[in-house]
């Protein structure tokens, strides 16, 4: 028995050391490889992309049919473990009802359908790449989706004069973590295609922490007393696009949204399209 126990212990030790050699993101071996600026700050420059299917629903969710039957499996919504810490969003009671209603009307209400700039944090996990540029004065993030772009002010320029689709971003470093305070967003944007939503009073505190040369942990804490009972946090990794020659391509989606936005205003279209079935009776 004793011999067996020793063998098991040895096997466990071996597996521990194998794990260490696999160099999990965040391990000392990998964080040592993070590229750094001359001042010692991590360089987050590069093209990053989320793999978590959070844009379908940031909460844990099973696979489900898509909004349009005609697309078959192509339009079905893939399952995901969710990116909300604890799994649940602390909605106020009315707001949970609102979210369900939003989901039912998502083709009509989701601003992604309309090709509007997606807001923060959603822009970071849409399934399109983003590119971070760390200049001497700013951190800029360019997004493939809708050509959206953010200026992250590393010197606080003062309060925002109005609201913006991509918000008003003021950044600072906490050790190796870039912390960005995002305020003054539009109330119209959602967190995902599942109708999870916020108000214009939302404050997002983002944390970008490199876990190695090719992984960036992204966290965002959401505060919005008009919609939620308490602050809550999402967390997911962003992966570096390592293929040679990777670059942001153009996804100018306005032409793709025009039928949805203006189709009912075409010459000859029925302006009361939704009631067309009633007319034929």
């Amino acid at each position, binding site marked *: 028995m004793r011999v067996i126990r020793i063998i098991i212990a040895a096997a466990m030790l071996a597996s521990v050391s194998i794990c260490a050699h696999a160099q999990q993101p965040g391990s000392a071996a990998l964080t040592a490889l993070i590229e750094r600026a*001359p001042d010692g700050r991590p360089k987050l420059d590069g093209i990053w992309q989320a793999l978590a299917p959070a844009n379908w629903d940031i909460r844990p969710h099973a696979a489900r049919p898509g909004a349009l039957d005609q697309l078959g499996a192509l339009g079905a919504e893939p399952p995901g473990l969710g990116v909300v810490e604890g799994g649940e969003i602390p909605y106020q009671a009315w707001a949970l009802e609102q979210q369900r209603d939003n989901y039912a009307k998502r083709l009509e209400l989701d601003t992604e359908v309309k090709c509007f700039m997606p807001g923060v944090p959603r822009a970071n996990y849409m399934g399109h790449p983003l590119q971070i540029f760390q200049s001497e004065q*700013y951190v800029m993030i360019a997004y493939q989706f809708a050509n959206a772009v953010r200026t992250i002010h590393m010197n606080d320029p003062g309060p925002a004069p109005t609201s913006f689709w991509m918000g008003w971003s003021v950044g600072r470093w906490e050790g190796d973590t870039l912390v960005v305070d995002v305020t003054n967003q539009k109330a119209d944007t959602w967190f995902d295609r599942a109708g999870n939503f916020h108000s214009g009073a939302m404050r997002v505190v983002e944390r970008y922490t490199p876990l190695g040369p090719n992984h960036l942990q992204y966290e965002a804490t959401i505060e919005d007393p008009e919609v939620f009972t308490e602050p809550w946090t999402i967390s997911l990794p962003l992966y570096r696009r390592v293929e040679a020659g990777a670059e942001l391509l153009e996804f100018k989606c306005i032409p793709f949204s025009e039928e949805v936005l203006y189709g009912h*205003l*075409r010459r000859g279209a029925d302006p009361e399209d939704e009631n067309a079935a009633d007319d034929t009776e």
Partner: protein
Amino acid sequence: MQRKPPPGQIHTMLLSSALLLTACQAPDPSDAFDSDYSPPRTSYGDPDLQGIWSNAVITPLERPRDLGDKEFLTPEEAAVYEQERLAATNRDQRPDNVATDVGNAYNNFWWDSGDNVVATRRTSLIVDPPDGRIPPLTAEAERRLESDPGFLGRRAADTFANFTDGPEQQDLMTRCIQFGSAGPPMLPSAYNNNYHLVQTEDHVLIINEMVHETRVIPLDGRAPLPKGLRQWLGSSRGHFDGDTLVVETSNFRPETAFRGASENMRLTERFTRIDDNVLLYEFTVDDPSTFTRPWTAQIPSVRVDDLMYEYACHEGNRGLYGILAGARAAEAAAEAD
């Protein structure tokens, strides 16, 4: 946003113009602006061209025909031109004619096209060819434009009475898809003339205020995108030539059709800081299937000491909605009569 250059800067620009005069036929700024000015450098040694720059200037792209071979205005002529232009474009008036009044809906509050001609007082932004005008079109381009004169051509010729049939019949600006002023190449326009240039060691980012067009320009010498991959903004690659940032762009879409150009247009842009407050922006259009020769324009972009804010055109596009809804309402009213 504030756009007027401080007086000292105008002086410098005039000095530059004197140097330019002695360097005719030489659109290369390294020859034309042979001053002692040396731009600040980034920590990694590149010329520092960063900042928010404004192209708001009232000098026309092409020299007006009535100016003939007059290359420069005198200071007095420039003052008169500026006053006349301001009077002509003053939209703070309420004409009796309803259509004209509605046409002035964008009044002077929205108009932000600048009050001044370029500091060199050149009569056109085009510096080459010497007549200051876009070169004649090739026969091929004449045929192409005759068969499809583009939206503005069709509307002007009144051969496109169905331009309110749907969104696709409207021009790219009304649809918020692309503005000629944001380019590339960039040109002065009625408003939103600012752009933010940001540099890193391996990229340049140019964000144009107009419809937040964002160009990511790699400096690592990579090849352009594959030929079949065409984009509204093309595919841009940059490098430094001395103190000048050179950006070459190809892979345009046919719809872009800058000044009638084909998708084969090759664009070369040059950004040279000629003093602390002026970034000289030059572009050369080369499209042998459209123009009988390449042509070059020059805009001195003036530093803006302010922030640039997000311009969300599509998100707030009630205009296109109104155009189409109005056309349908007019049809319904005509049917009821």
